[in-house]
């Protein structure tokens, strides 16, 4: 891994963080898309997408609802996908599922840690914005400029936190994953594979929780059964 790649991935993390917390929420910051972007940058789109899908399925239950304490999905997905993609590219290891499982685990851990960092640093940003108190005699033009200053401060803050998180976590995550995948034997490879294959169950649970309401149950159950029949036939 070159320093240039860390910088590029950190910049991507910064841009996606700004989109996630300050943009129009166009889903680009969601793991499934951010991991794909990382994969395309590193040249390993399919394994990176596998990491993104696994993370998305786990984090489906942590959509940014009001007051929700969610993990930092951007740093988690960027670091997780980059770890898998870079490991596969650099080591040439053929155990793709193990690499994807390791990247996913790393992504989940970074996401949790990143969530704590983002919540803590955001308190400072919030205090700065809450202290906005312009002079009473300020005209609209002056006020607009002052608000613009706060806007750029906040946008840069979100991007900087995201970029620093990725830049700090990626080398550590990569070194840890390299060591871990270098020492595991076949039983642990099988364990990691089982874990990765079981993760979608958490996504299925999140979906069930989201849509299982009295008037929606019939759609949920019917489509599950219909799709199962179609898959069975196909």
């Amino acid at each position: 891994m070159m320093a240039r790649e860390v910088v590029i991935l950190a910049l991507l993390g910064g841009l996606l963080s700004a989109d996630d917390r300050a943009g129009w929420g166009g889903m680009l910051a969601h793991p499934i898309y951010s991991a794909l972007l990382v994969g395309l940058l590193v040249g390993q789109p399919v394994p990176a997408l596998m990491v993104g899908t696994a993370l998305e399925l786990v984090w489906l239950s942590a959509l940014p609802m009001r007051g929700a304490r969610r993990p930092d999905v951007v740093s988690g997905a960027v670091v997780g996908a980059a770890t898998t993609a870079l490991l596969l590219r650099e080591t040439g290891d053929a155990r793709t599922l193990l690499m994807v499982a390791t990247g996913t685990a790393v992504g989940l851990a970074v996401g949790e840690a990143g969530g704590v960092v983002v919540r803590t640093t955001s308190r400072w940003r919030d205090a700065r914005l809450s202290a906005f108190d312009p002079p009473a005699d300020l005209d609209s033009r002056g006020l607009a400029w002052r608000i613009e200053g706060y806007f750029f401060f906040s946008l840069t803050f979100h991007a900087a936190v995201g970029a620093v998180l990725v830049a700090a976590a990626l080398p550590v995550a990569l070194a840890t994953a390299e060591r871990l995948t270098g020492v595991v034997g076949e039983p642990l490879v099988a364990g990691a594979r089982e874990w990765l294959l079981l993760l979608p169950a958490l996504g299925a649970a999140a979906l069930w929780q989201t849509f299982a309401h009295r008037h929606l149950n019939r759609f949920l159950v019917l489509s599950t059964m219909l799709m199962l029949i179609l898959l069975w036939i196909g």
Partner: protein
Amino acid sequence: MDRVDRHERVARGPAGIGRLDLLRVGWRLLPMQALLHARGMQSLAFARALAPVAHKLEQDGNSLLSRHLGFFNCNPNFAPMIVGGVIRLEEDRLAGRPVAPADVEYFKRSISSPLAAMGDLLFLGALKPLALTLACLFAIYQSFIGLVATWLLYNLVVLSCRLGGVYFGYAKGWELVDVFSGPAFQRLLGIVQSIGASVGGALVAVVLFRFARDSTSMLGLGAALAAAAVVLLRKDISLSRVAILLFPLSAVVTLLLM
């Protein structure tokens, strides 16, 4: 107001606010969450959005922006409609119609809470899970075209609300309250939730089928984990942490079984 009148109104109102002005307001509302803060929530973003039209709506040196620095909290996809409505009311006030600053504030406060709840229900409770579920399905089958199409469709809806909402709110003014009082929104929400539930069911089926294809024990284990996860979610326990805990656990279990 008939359709033709409304179009003329959007093209050029009494204060000279044109389509381009409203587009600039909408553009500034795209990153409105950047200015979200605990004290005033989206108050700064609201004032920032009004900046391009402030000079056209001010009278007697009365600063429009400072009047709109009060607490404001709404779903970011529905907030543009309120901003459009406020511009319309401010313009009516400028044209000499009986609209007091207190009325504009009343409009803002009375409509923001219901629209916040409706927007959260529609976007965070139905549309986003639907789009992400579709994206997951496409990702499982590695359909890059499907992924891009889902992203484009979702963004088309969101950007229509964010940019088109300003025009809609401006054209409606006070009538905006009536639009959301009727059954139309509930019907729309019901349709999106039904589609979401159907796509969600399809993803659940794909997950179960993949477990079954792997082995019977995997199907049993997956179903048990999903059932346990539903219980954990109801107890507000983070599935992300559960997944992290399961990683070393699965390795230990595999070692013991071998």
